[in-house]
């Protein structure tokens, strides 16, 4: 490998839409913090491809993706490199549905959301942000996968 080449950390697969079906994109992200920013960039590019999106739409999408991936890597998989974060994207004309799943034990999001934000706390704002940024957000029963819907134009 040339000295300046970086190993490919993300595994991306794309299926073009046809006959009215939504295009789909799958990305496997390794459980390391260093991969998150690149994953956000790649996913944003796919999510907004062909859509005349505003800066605000891009901001909401990037921030929500960064938040969901950080939760999955740090809290879900606890940075265990043997585990992956699995992202599936469904592209509709006006919205994008992003599924983010990890291989952790899951958590109870309703309990976390009952907490009131404390202005000077060092952490604890992630879920609040996710719920505010996404137009719809659902978790699976186990609490280790979510599906968020965001506008893409």
């Amino acid at each position, binding site marked *: 490998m040339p000295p300046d080449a970086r190993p490919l950390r993300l595994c991306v697969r794309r299926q073009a839409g046809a006959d009215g079906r939504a295009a789909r994109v799958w990305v496997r992200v390794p459980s390391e913090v*260093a991969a998150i*920013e690149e994953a956000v960039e790649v996913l944003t590019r796919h999510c907004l491809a062909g859509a005349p999106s505003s800066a605000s739409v891009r901001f909401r999408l*990037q921030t929500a993706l960064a938040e969901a991936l950080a939760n999955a890597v*740090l809290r879900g998989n606890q940075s265990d490199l043997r585990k992956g974060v699995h992202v599936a994207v469904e592209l509709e004309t006006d919205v994008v549905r992003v599924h983010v799943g990890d291989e952790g034990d899951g958590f109870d999001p309703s309990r976390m959301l009952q907490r009131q934000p404390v*202005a000077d706390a060092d*952490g604890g704002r992630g879920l609040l942000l996710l719920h505010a940024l996404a137009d719809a957000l659902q978790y699976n029963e186990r609490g280790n996968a979510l599906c968020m819907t965001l506008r893409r134009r």
Partner: protein
Amino acid sequence: MDLIQTRAEDVLVVRAGGQLNVTNRHELKDLVSVALDAGDRKFVLDFTGTGYIDSSGLGALVTLAKKVRESGGDVQLAGLNADLRHLFALTKLDTLFRIAGSSDEALAAF
């Protein structure tokens, strides 16, 4: 994240370009820590060139602001666009920081 430092009298202005997130939040905290050790007490953090800030980045701002204030200094924020301002309001961080429209306005307010 690109961090560019300039000085206006006794105020250190740090312009943050790129994203402030879980990957790089320590860079900004470390920069302010080093400046505190060197005697700086007044800081303006300018986010005009920043794309997004995730919850880890927001947490880093809270931590560094506490540290600066414990040392008798202050931090002002500048250049937040409408989306970032919304994020700060949502998380109540707008009650924790003085937020100016631009670095120049922040400097004038010190």
